[in-house]
Structure formats: C-alpha cells, structure tokens
C-alpha cells in the first residue's frame, strides 16, 4: 500500500505503510477496530511475528482467529475464549443427556413391542449406543495450574480436572 492510504495498523501505529506491509492485506483502513483490538490483546509485534511464521495462504485464517480471540478477551477479561468453551461444552453435555434419555425411551418402546425377541439382545445393542454417546463428551480443558484457584463464577459445570 502506498503512502496515500495506509492500512489500519500503520494508521494506528502512526508509521509509513510500506508496499510490502505484512498487515495491510488483513487490516484494511476501513476497519480500524479490527486491528485495534488485536493490538490491544496481543500487541502489534507479536502479531507481526506470528504472521511472518506462517505461509501466506494461512495468514487470513490466522488473523480471523486472532480477532475472534481478542474480542473474546475484551468481552471477558478473565476467561476470554475459555469462557466460550465452557458454555459450548455445557451445551454438548446437555444435548448428550437428552439424546441418552431419548434412546432409553426407544429401548423401552422396542422392548414393549417385541417381547418375542430375547431381552438381552435388544438391551445390549442399544446399551452400547448409549454408552458410546455418554462417553463421547469432549475433555478439552485438562491442564495443570500452578494457582489451583480455578473457580466457575458463572456456576457452570467445572471443567478443569
């Protein structure tokens, strides 16, 4: 980009926007907030280093995910993105429980409708399905903390083990 229209990053950093500016393709001047928030959370030099280490075709995605994480951190300075994971894992757990209940209901219906079939055959087929659903809960948050002070002020299920 020439000197006539610096990208959002160079505008914020008050510097000349070189034509090979690494930020320019991803932080256009018409969206200053995008760079501002990434700079606030990660810092311009860190973002520059991260982008430089990536092949060009992956940089746009990297910027999008950095913007997402930065927004999450600004909205929730304590938990950041981790708060979103907590919420989503709760949703998955609830859905898995509902699915397990529905499958148990199907099992009962099948047992009522087909009393001629050996009970153990119907039960073992659907129980294995139930077990696979219940054990399929994601366990993404499992890290050791030096602080041991991980509480959940939103009163959701604790995810740290």
């Amino acid at each position, binding site marked *: 980009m020439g000197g006539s229209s610096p990208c959002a990053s160079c505008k914020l950093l008050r510097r000349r926007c070189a034509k090979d500016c690494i930020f320019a393709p991803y932080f256009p001047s018409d969206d200053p907030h995008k760079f501002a928030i990434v700079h606030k959370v990660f*810092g311009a030099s*860190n973002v520059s280093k991260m982008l430089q280490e990536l092949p060009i075709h992956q940089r746009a995605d990297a910027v999008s995910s950095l913007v*997402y994480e930065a927004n999450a951190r600004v909205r929730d300075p304590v938990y950041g993105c981790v708060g979103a994971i907590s919420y989503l894992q709760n949703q*998955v757990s609830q859905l898995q429980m509902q699915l397990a209940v529905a499958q148990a209901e199907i099992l009962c219906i099948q047992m009522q409708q087909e009393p001629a079939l050996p009970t153990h055959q119907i039960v073992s087929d659907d129980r294995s399905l139930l077990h696979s659903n219940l054990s399929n809960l994601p366990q993404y948050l499992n890290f050791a903390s*030096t602080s041991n*002070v991980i509480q959940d002020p939103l009163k959701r299920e604790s995810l740290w083990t």
Partner: protein
Amino acid sequence: MANSTRCAACKYLRRRCSHDCILASYFPSTNPERFACVHKIFGASNITKILQQLPVHQRAVAADCMFFEAGSRVRDPVYGFVAIISQLHQQIIITQRELAETQGQIAFYGAQQVQGLKQKTESRIQYNETMCFNASQ
C-alpha cells in the same frame, strides 16, 4: 523478591523481581515454560495490563486462561483456541441432528402404537356386533 528468587517472568525478562511484582504469583520460577509460552503470544506488557485491570481474586484464573490460550496458539498457530470452539460447534450440530432423528423415531413408534390400538378396538367392536347379531337370530 530478591534476585536469587526471581519469578519466571522477571528471569525471562532479565530484570529485578520486586517484592510487589504482579506476575510473580502466577508465573513461579518453578515453571519457566509457562511464562515463556504466554509471553510469546501476549507479550509481557499486555499480560501485566490485563492482570492489573482485574481484581486480585480473579487474576489467577485469568493467568491460567491466558496460558491455556497461548498454549493452543503455539500448538496451532493458524487457528489456536478457535479450532476447539469450531469442533464443539460441529459436535453440537451433529448431536442435535441425532436427537431430532431419535425423537422422530419415538414419534413414529408412538403413532404405530396408537394405530395398533385403534385397529384392535375396531376389531373388538365388529366382533361384539357380530356376536350380538348371531345371538338375536
């Protein structure tokens, strides 16, 4: 904190660790990789700013979360933590679909049962009518 017991942050930054160093409680010298990881992604001054803006009782959790996010970003420099969020969204969609299918099956079985009951009732009525007719003959 004396020079000989600098926290991991001050050791990494090669500076004196003061007794009120804000980073010391969350980046102990026993775990230097923790600070190195967070510093690589967020930078020392951003970490300090973020922690300073928080009440003391929330800083430990914030430091843990930053470490977790930074670790994810180091492992996956393109998507970082967002990859996990994306996977969870996918899992929600798949489970919702499965739940809808299972509930559909329940509704189907329920309809079958009602239909079966209706047919039984109708046959019984016809049988009774036939018996009454024969008896009257």
